[in-house]
């Protein structure tokens, strides 16, 4: 399956400071690089030999809002030369609540942004402090209100399993988030990544992860509470009011081709996923020097692509429609993993009914342990 990409991801690798748990591609406190970055981005966009008509555009980071209104408009002016969003395209911008103010929102509107993903993480002061975040709960409330007023679709991030956080804390956060009436919520469980300040402190015994029992309870609380509030749980970490799923992310999970630009950004042509070099400075140097900024290339055979499709498909709550899966991938799920699928069903981790195969809640919660057998 290929055809021209109809989705574009843009990575904006700047943040005010680096949060202790974060291992994303970004530079903190290096605003001096922004102009070079924009220049390099313009160069990389020239890879497209013809203008691209797109349904979704996603500016992620880092913190895209850290560019500020003026530079954001410059960026979009540049993008418009090659990227042509269709009418009702979904244009998402990730934003730090602190960056959301009247002029910025106005600029974003002028740029055509339709959706803002707010890096809210929590509405609890203590949790925000543990997470090393620079905003306060009120900043989230204010930003959310302002965006709603501007007619933007809002997605709020909620972080669970922060050190010291309890299930009650998470329940309280969920109430607070629901009360802000966002269109979309993403719930992320904190992970301890190599090389982060958190991980170093954990090894020294200065930070302690919550137990996996608590982790599970927090996640289940989110599923239950958001479900009660009318959100559909449509993928492991994502919840949306009807009609408000993130169409951009759905393109990923459908394995549709997409384009991507910026350091660490990954693009996909239906078979091969190409990831740019993860270092911002290396990426800038390579692009401006006229060199290939690729860092990693993941080329898949038809079968490998089908296996990957099975994994991302099963991470969606609706699971996969067996017939469609076969039409698109050329394989039936059972051709790929009959033994495993039967075992999951027997163990109550998956259900197959009326031509659909999906993971139960129990299955979803431990799904990473299932994939080794599939891939």
């Amino acid at each position, binding site marked *: 399956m290929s055809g021209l990409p109809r989705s574009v991801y843009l990575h904006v690798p700047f943040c005010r400071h680096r949060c202790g748990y974060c291992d994303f591609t970004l530079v903190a406190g290096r605003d001096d690089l922004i102009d070079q970055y924009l220049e390099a981005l313009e160069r990389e966009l020239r890879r497209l030999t013809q203008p691209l008509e797109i349904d979704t555009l996603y500016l*992620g980071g880092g913190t895209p809002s850290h560019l500020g209104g003026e530079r954001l408009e410059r960026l979009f002016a540049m993008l418009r030369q090659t990227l042509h969003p269709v009418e009702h395209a979904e244009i998402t911008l990730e934003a730090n609540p602190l960056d959301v103010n009247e002029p910025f929102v106005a600029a974003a509107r002028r740029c055509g942004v339709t959706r803002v993903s707010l890096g809210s993480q929590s509405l609890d002061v203590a949790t925000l402090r543990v997470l090393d975040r620079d905003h306060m709960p009120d900043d989230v409330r204010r930003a959310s209100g302002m965006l709603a007023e501007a007619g933007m679709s809002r997605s709020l991030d909620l972080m669970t399993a922060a050190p010291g956080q309890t299930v009650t804390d998470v329940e309280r956060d969920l109430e607070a988030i629901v009360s802000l009436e966002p269109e979309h919520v993403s719930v992320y*469980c904190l992970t301890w990544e190599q090389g982060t300040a958190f991980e170093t402190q954990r090894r020294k015994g200065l930070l302690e992860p919550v137990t*996996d029992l608590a982790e599970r309870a927090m996640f289940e609380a989110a599923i239950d509470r958001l479900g009660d509030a009318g959100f559909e749980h449509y993928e492991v970490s994502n919840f949306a009011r009807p009609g408000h799923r993130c169409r951009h992310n759905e393109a990923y999970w459908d394995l549709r081709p997409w384009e991507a630009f910026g350091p660490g950004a990954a693009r996909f042509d239906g078979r091969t*996923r190409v990831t740019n070099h993860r270092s911002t400075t290396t990426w800038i140097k390579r692009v401006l020097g006229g060199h290939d900024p690729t860092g990693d290339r993941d080329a898949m055979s038809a079968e490998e692509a089908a296996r990957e499709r099975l994994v991302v498909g099963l991470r969606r709550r609706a699971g996969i429609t067996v017939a469609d899966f076969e039409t698109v991938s050329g394989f039936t799920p059972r051709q790929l993993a009959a033994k495993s699928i039967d075992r999951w069903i027997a*163990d109550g981790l998956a259900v197959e009914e009326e031509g659909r195969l999906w993971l139960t809640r129990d299955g979803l919660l431990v799904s*990473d342990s299932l994939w080794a*057998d599939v*891939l």
Partner: protein
Amino acid sequence: MPFDCKHIRNFSIVAHIDHGKSTLADRLLEHTGTVEKRQLKEQMLDDMELERQRGITIKARAVRMEYRHKGELYELNLIDTPGHVDFQYEVSRSLACCEGAVLLVDAFQGVEAQTVANAYSAIAQDLTIVPVINKVDLTYARVDEVLEEMEQSLAIDPEEVIRASAKSGIGIEEVLEAIVERVPPPVGDPDKVLRAMVFDSLYDAYRGAITYIRILDGTVRKGQKIRFARQGTTHEVTELGQFVPQRRACEELRAGQVGYLVCNIKDVKQVHIGDTVTVPGDEAAEALPGYKPPQRMVYCGLYPSEGENFEELRDSLEKLAINDPSFEYSPESSDALGFGFRCGFLGLLHMEIIQQRLEKESDLDLVQTAPNVTYQVLTSSGETLEITNPQDVPDSGQIEEFRQPIVRTNFITPAEYIGPIMQLCTDRRGVYLKTEYLSPTRAMLCFDLPLAEVIYDLHDKLKSVTKGYGTMDYELQGYFPADLVRLDILVGGKKVDALSIICDRRDADRRGRAIVKKLRGEIDRHMFEVALQAAIGTRIIARETISALRKNVTAKCYGGDISRKKKLWAKQKEGKKRMKSIGSVDIPQKAFMAVLDTGQERT
């Protein structure tokens, strides 16, 4: 012109590991012009890939050199030997082909355990010893003290010791002179009936078996018929020659010489090390006494992780055994692991090497059980069973006597570590025999210890309590009764036969607790709770639980995330290949080694 016996010298180089045998061999090859300088590589006789990787000699190697002394030309046959205790039998075989032994002692390390062991083997075989202090170039060489140690421990006259450096070439001429002057020539008669000792064999893909021989009497010529006295087979010699150090064909080999025979033998099993080569017919010479077969010290189970690869594993083992007759294997089966092989090795290093080769040369994923020593059980019906696998221990009711192998272990150490070594050995139920001083500051301690206590980690522990200065050597004494039990491990309520061990009853509780604790760390969490138990018979002596997995799901799976995640999952999958499912519990390879945990922070 053929060399007569008077102009032949056969000698081995023996020493403790790393004292510089192979480097001295390099110098001798160079000095005698056997190998041109520009072709010379460091430790060039260590030409097996594994030897080069590990920087040690594994297999003894023979080389022929020519050396002119006082106007006369001599043929010198050198055998470089390994220093590691696992390969001790290679040394004794080599010594049997020689009249002399160059005994090397490191000028800094001094006399160490294998120095003593090898020197005694040479003395026991009536060889002339040419003592050499090597590495005198080292700035911290302590020549005088080492001379004293040699005198004290081996009664070597300091006057006779040659000071040399194999690295910088000091004393090489003296070593060669001493070999000619001190080592007696071989006594054979080239006109007598052929009688030669088979001291090694090797498999060559093109020529089949290559038989290494030392000729005691007679002459062997190309095209001649020969007979292996013990095996009783007759063959035609299609090629013969010497090592220079590569094989070089010649027309005949005569009494006193060392060389090789090629006889179109496809199956290396037809060549028995220690056999005698003679002529067919009535004239045939009597067989020589031969060698003691090598003693396998440890056994372990090797199983394909995919049951269907059993035959492939058999083929690979067979191929390996062709080149290494000291390793032995026989099929066995385990409830937990299916069909596999019980393999016997000379020691843990040997085991490691065989496994490494197996993995390199075949593409199999293997599950290995923890190594164990051999036990003997005298049953109530009066039968003696050799137990190489804990599974085979009969019910306690049928055991009259349970015996374990005991080794006499010599430690050589700076005197200040005598205390810690004593402690080490008493913790391991060693029986103290004696202490001898090699010099005011160095001592030799002698203990009888259960082999099982020696083989797994004693060497590492010794190195750590003596800051690396202590060395050890051991020799099997025999099997002696002990209060032993079989300890079983249950995973998820099922006994896993491949995890059973044999241990001293007094240690059973402690080891049982340690093993289940260790296993808890090795076995991943499952979707369900997994109970781990240690038991003697039906009595449970220790228990641990692995709680069920509650949550394991990647939160972010956007854009390029999946590529990164896939690498991780692929690694997990690789890990899973080495697992065995028992019931529905996946047990990783490492877990089978958990049973080696002694449960004691012993010194």
